[in-house]
């Protein structure tokens, strides 16, 4: 293709991987690539969320639009989302966006008949497609199953009833935050910490201890055997310069040097449960590729648009 392009290919190393949490390292790439991934994960990976609510009966204390808003924010398992069509692009339905290819139907029926308050939760939402259901947040780590009832939508008193039909559609976070599959996505530069051992030897044990304690997060510690300051967790460093200021205050600037490696990033991803954390990254890469494809293959026209008339004339030397 072109001559010597200095393109490098990135490397990935996974640190931790759970269903809704992933921590991995990305090496040999630029911040713009990492940021593009982060932006796509938050705003452009599609998921499914309730978008249209038809309420038949609502005698609860919350009004209709309040309940509809809450329903929209419930995360639904969205493995189908990548292969589904957007409602506006669907040609199978009559344009009302409610066919089986582009949407999923839910219904909810709750009436409180006892004297006890009835909690209407996300577990009471029944789906027409068993692959798209409200995310189950049950924590199996020792809680009684009766305590894990799902997200509470509304509470009903004796005699109050809620009956509704909801349509869930595919969307992206850019349109509305309910469609964002990511709870948080962050990345940080990987720090590189060098301790100047000669300077460190000139300190007394108390000075070393106060130096170690000056960092808000536990980055350094004193090795009990050798009485030396060692780096115990470089990634706990949050790029506050407290240790550097402390070193200067002690009269020893250059005691420790901390660099951020410019091409090494540590990503921390928490998903809402709609999509698994690992799947979220893969979908994000897929969406990024699709965007690039769209740019590459777009039929660009050179003649001036109405609004670009002046720009075009200027470009052509007019």
């Amino acid at each position, binding site marked *: 293709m072109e*001559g010597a392009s200095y393109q490098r290919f990135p490397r*990935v190393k996974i640190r931790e991987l759970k269903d809704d949490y992933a921590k991995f390292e990305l090496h040999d790439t630029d911040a*713009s*690539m990492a940021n593009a991934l982060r932006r796509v994960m938050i705003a452009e990976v599609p998921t499914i969320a309730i978008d249209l609510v038809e309420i038949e009966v609502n005698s609860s204390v919350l009004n209709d639009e309040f309940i509809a808003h809450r329903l929209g924010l419930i995360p639904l398992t969205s493995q189908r989302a990548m292969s589904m069509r957007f409602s506006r692009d669907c040609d199978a339905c009559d344009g009302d966006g409610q066919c089986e290819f582009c949407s999923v139907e839910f219904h909810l029926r709750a009436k409180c008949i006892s004297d006890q308050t009835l909690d209407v939760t996300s577990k009471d939402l029944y789906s027409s497609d068993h692959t798209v259901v409200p995310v189950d947040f049950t924590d199996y780590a020792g809680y009684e199953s009766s305590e894990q009832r799902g997200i509470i939508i509304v509470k009903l008193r004796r005699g109050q009833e809620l009956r509704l039909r909801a349509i869930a559609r595919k969307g992206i976070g850019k349109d509305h935050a309910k469609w964002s599959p990511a709870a948080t996505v962050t990345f940080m530069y990987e720090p590189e910490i060098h301790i100047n051992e000669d300077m460190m030897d000139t300190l007394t044990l108390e000075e070393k201890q106060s130096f170690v304690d000056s960092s808000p997060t536990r980055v350094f510690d004193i090795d009990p055997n050798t009485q030396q300051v060692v780096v115990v967790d470089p990634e706990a460093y949050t790029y506050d310069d407290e240790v550097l200021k402390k070193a200067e205050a002690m009269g020893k600037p250059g005691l420790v040097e901390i660099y951020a490696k410019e091409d090494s990033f540590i990503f921390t991803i928490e998903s809402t449960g709609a999509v698994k954390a690992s799947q979220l990254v*893969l979908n994000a890469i897929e969406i990024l*590729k699709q965007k690039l*494809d769209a*740019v590459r293959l777009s039929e660009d026209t050179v003649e001036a648009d109405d609004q670009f008339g002046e720009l075009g004339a200027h*470009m052509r030397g007019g």
Partner: protein
Amino acid sequence: MEHGSFTDNSAATFSLTDEDHTIANAVRFTLNQDPRVTFYGYSIPHPSEARVNIRVQTTGDPAREVLKDACQNLMLMCRHVRCTFDKAVEDLKQAML
């Protein structure tokens, strides 16, 4: 949408709709590594409007081709990241078994 000179197609301004920093900054990184490119810059005329203006100037090759090659390179990189990530997930699952 591309605006350039009819006689000299080594420099052009592209206007992409429905795009933002996500794609423009990533392409900036790839294009600045391409030795054929003398200038690359992008701006967003107004944050409320989803439009990016990209300016590319090259050493002679058509600007449109260079931009397309950059997109291709980025896609290759994405593919590589995806394969590496897939492999890393597989290795992790194997190690946990």
